[in-house]
């Protein structure tokens, strides 16, 4: 019983089958690699990024034990992410867009340096 002292404060033992989670993650990995092969933009986005979010959620939920962690820890992480989203939201009208109200970017897309221009 000594190990319970170092276990979670709520003392709850969890019976998550980690190998099963891992197997699901591998299946998702295959999906995210195969999906873009069809060359359809929507499918690529969903399989690449949708699946990445699911994978990330599973790792956070089961491996990092956010499922049994104190709720406020989850909130802190979500708040940090929300700040980042707000930041990107505030920046993107300037950085993401090529032109806006009363301004435009002048650069041309640099010629793709296939083979690299560094030599």
């Amino acid at each position, binding site marked *: 019983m000594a190990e319970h002292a170092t276990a979670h404060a709520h003392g709850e033992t969890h019976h998550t089958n980690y190998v099963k989670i891992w197997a699901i993650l591998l299946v998702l990995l295959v999906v995210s690699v195969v999906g873009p092969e069809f060359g359809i933009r929507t499918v690529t986005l969903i399989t690449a990024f949708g699946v990445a979010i699911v994978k990330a959620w599973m790792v956070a939920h089961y491996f990092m034990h956010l499922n049994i962690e104190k709720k406020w820890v989850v909130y802190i992480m979500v708040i940090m992410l929300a700040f980042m989203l707000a930041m990107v939201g505030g920046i993107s009208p300037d950085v993401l867009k090529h032109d806006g*109200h*009363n*301004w*435009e*970017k*002048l*650069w041309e897309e640099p010629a793709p340096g296939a083979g690299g221009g560094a030599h």
Partner: protein
Amino acid sequence: MPYWYLQQASTFAGDVDNLVLLITVIVGFWFLAAEFIFFWLIWRFRARDGHKAAYVAGETKREKRWVSYPHYAVLAFDILILIFALRVWNDIKISAPPAEERIRVIAQQWAWTFVHAGPDGVLDTADDIRTVDDMHVELDKTYHFELHSRDVVHSFSVPVFRLKQDAVPGRAILGWFRPTRTGEFDIQCAEICGIGHGLMPARLIVRTPEEHRAWMAEASGMASATAGTGLVARVEGEGQ
């Protein structure tokens, strides 16, 4: 107030100054009220023999009134300031009246190049007049300016116009102004741009239409003579 020191030489200079005045009146009142109460409390409740301080937690609604009502007032006055500030901002930066002439401003370390439309009033034609460090505009004419930077971030600031806009490399930024006063005024760079940041003054010369035409005639003659000199030629190559 800015107009104590500086003339108003553009259509929106007065709006900016009025906004400054409005803010001064509103926050000035609240500032003086707060400082007055603050110093009065300090004087009134200084330590005296035989007086013990009161125990006020400030947790009841009745007590909190003393801070919550003023802060509602702050909110209300914020909204008032906001309305005027956004209107002025909109006039200067968002909605511009149609252009009568365009002018190109190119900043570089550490000089300004101004490309004037010349006698035909159209930019990017053969009779464009390029000048370094002085900008010539006509009274009561709406200009749209196109701001470029060739190296680092500069800022095109004309205090008498109450106008300021950073010049960012890789971007063309548009703005407008309409001079309302003739004379010679100063233009500064308002964003640190390297060693010569303080050595980057330019002159703004606002003339009546007749005088402006006379200047153009003179400058067009000179333009061919100066076209080959270093700086102008360099800007020429990159201006577009």
